[in-house]
């Protein structure tokens, strides 16, 4: 379980994350939603130790993130940021191999190779595994990065806007993979997501942030509700039931 207790973060005088406390259950997809600048990405980065918190505690399986050894944490929690610009030229396979670094420290064992190949198969990248990342389309590249995260084989997977810049087909593909990772492999996934309908269709639990504070949290069914969404986004959002999914209509 990931437990965030009264965490705050300030940039200069501006409070980006303000006294936030949330608990994230194991074996579920939890979505962080909210308007731009709500502090979602900052919170995710703090949980994954990419940036440090000013005050508060973040516990992963009852251990404080700041106290853990970095390499041990890398076997427990992985993060994928929204922009992954890499300066060096890598093939998909080489990238996925990097995911094994916490275990192999650079020398891949047979066990490591097994995980690498499984991750590539899982993301259906076998055909293009020797292609360079800069030759791929946005969707393929995102799948390659997710394959790397799968090879890292951590219990917790944190994704910052994994659907950024993807078309509908690839977005659905990625979300289905995430769902399978939770249902089949028992992973715990936390995503920051802007498309509220993807959050509604694929996540189990939703945490809504606004101005650095948690405005609402609860099971998906509870949160996808016109009056609650109005609190979060300050706009009227109609909700329709289509094929047992709650779809938010906010386009006009």
């Amino acid at each position, binding site marked *: 379980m990931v437990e965030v207790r009264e965490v705050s973060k300030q940039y200069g005088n501006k409070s980006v994350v303000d006294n936030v406390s949330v608990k994230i259950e194991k074996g579920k997809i939890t979505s962080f939603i909210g308007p731009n600048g709500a502090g979602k990405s900052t919170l995710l980065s703090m949980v994954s130790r990419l940036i*440090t918190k000013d005050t508060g505690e973040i516990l992963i399986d009852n251990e404080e993130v700041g106290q853990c050894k970095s390499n041990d944490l890398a076997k427990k929690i992985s993060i994928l940021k929204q922009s992954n610009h890499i*300066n060096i030229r*890598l093939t998909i396979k080489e990238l996925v191999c990097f*995911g094994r*670094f916490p275990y192999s420290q650079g020398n891949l064992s047979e066990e490591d190779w097994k995980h690498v190949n499984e991750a590539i198969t899982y993301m259906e990248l076998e055909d293009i595994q020797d292609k360079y990342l800069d030759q791929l389309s946005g969707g393929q590249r995102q799948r390659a990065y997710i394959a790397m995260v799968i090879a*890292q084989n951590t219990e917790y997977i944190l994704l910052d806007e994994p659907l950024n810049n993807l078309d509908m087909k690839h977005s659905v593909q990625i979300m289905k993979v995430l769902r399978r990772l939770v249902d089949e492999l028992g992973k715990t996934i936390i995503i920051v997501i802007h498309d509220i309908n993807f959050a509604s269709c694929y996540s189990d639990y939703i945490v809504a942030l606004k101005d650095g504070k948690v405005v609402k949290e609860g099971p998906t069914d509870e949160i996808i509700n016109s009056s609650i969404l109005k609190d979060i986004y300050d706009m009227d959002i109609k909700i329709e039931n289509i094929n047992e999914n709650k779809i938010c209509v906010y386009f006009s």
Partner: protein
Amino acid sequence: MKHNAKIGALAAFSVLLIAIFLFIKVGNNWDYVLPRRGLKVLAIVITGSAIAFSTVVFQTITNNRILTPSIMGLDSLYMLIQTFVIFIFGSTNLTVANKNINFVICVGLMVLFSGVLYKVLFKREGQNIYFLLLMGLILGTLFQSLSTFMQVLIDPNEFQIVQDKMFASFNNVNTDLLLIAIIAILGIAIYFSRFIKYLDVLSLGRDQAINLGVDYDYVVKRLLIVIAIFVSISTALVGPITFLGLLVVNVAHEFLKTYQHKYLIFGSVFISIIALVGGQLIVERVFTFSTTLSVIINFIGGVYFIYLLLRERKSW
């Protein structure tokens, strides 16, 4: 395997060049010529390796292929120290004339400078590495201006001596210093060897490196200190020569086409030795000492740098 073969070829070519350098026109005075040339080659190998190595690591840390450690202002600091000592004490003073003392003072001050710079910048956590570079660049410019200021004030004859130090030269390397430098560099290389596995991961950038379990701040801080010491030693030994690093590391990238540092480091080191020994051969045999090595290196490096910039622009 392919990479190993390329590294092997580079190594063989370096050895060949060194052999030519040692034995060309030896005549009958082996006892006189060989030790002298041997020392020169040793100095070249040591400084070449140190510069190539620190540039590879520096570019990895900064994730930027057109930077060299000289951006941190160490070269300018070296020139400032040299100018300052001559400005205050004059060129005939013993401190200036004694190369050992000069070497120790230079290395000491340069390492101290980097140490203070890192200390100040890393005290506040979360500081961007580019902020460090910016500070280095600004301080480097300041040092340069101060040097120029003193250079215009001193006696023209004294200026000749300062000017002599502005260009890297292997023509009169001190034996004692060489020994100290070799011991220091080998010692640090051994200390450094436990960080070598992190380099590949660091080239993915800070966020990925942390995600993959690298204690980023700890590792980067130590690597930067190693770089500062290597650059200081080689600069104090032969003069400002960091520009060479840019050239050889990029040639190594083009030649090896890999991201793996175990190849890149060795490749750069050998290319650096080839460039220096080859350049020194040209200086001695073609130009008969009418120019210095760093002039040739800077000329070729400059042309290559412009080529790099033009090519980068095209690929956008």
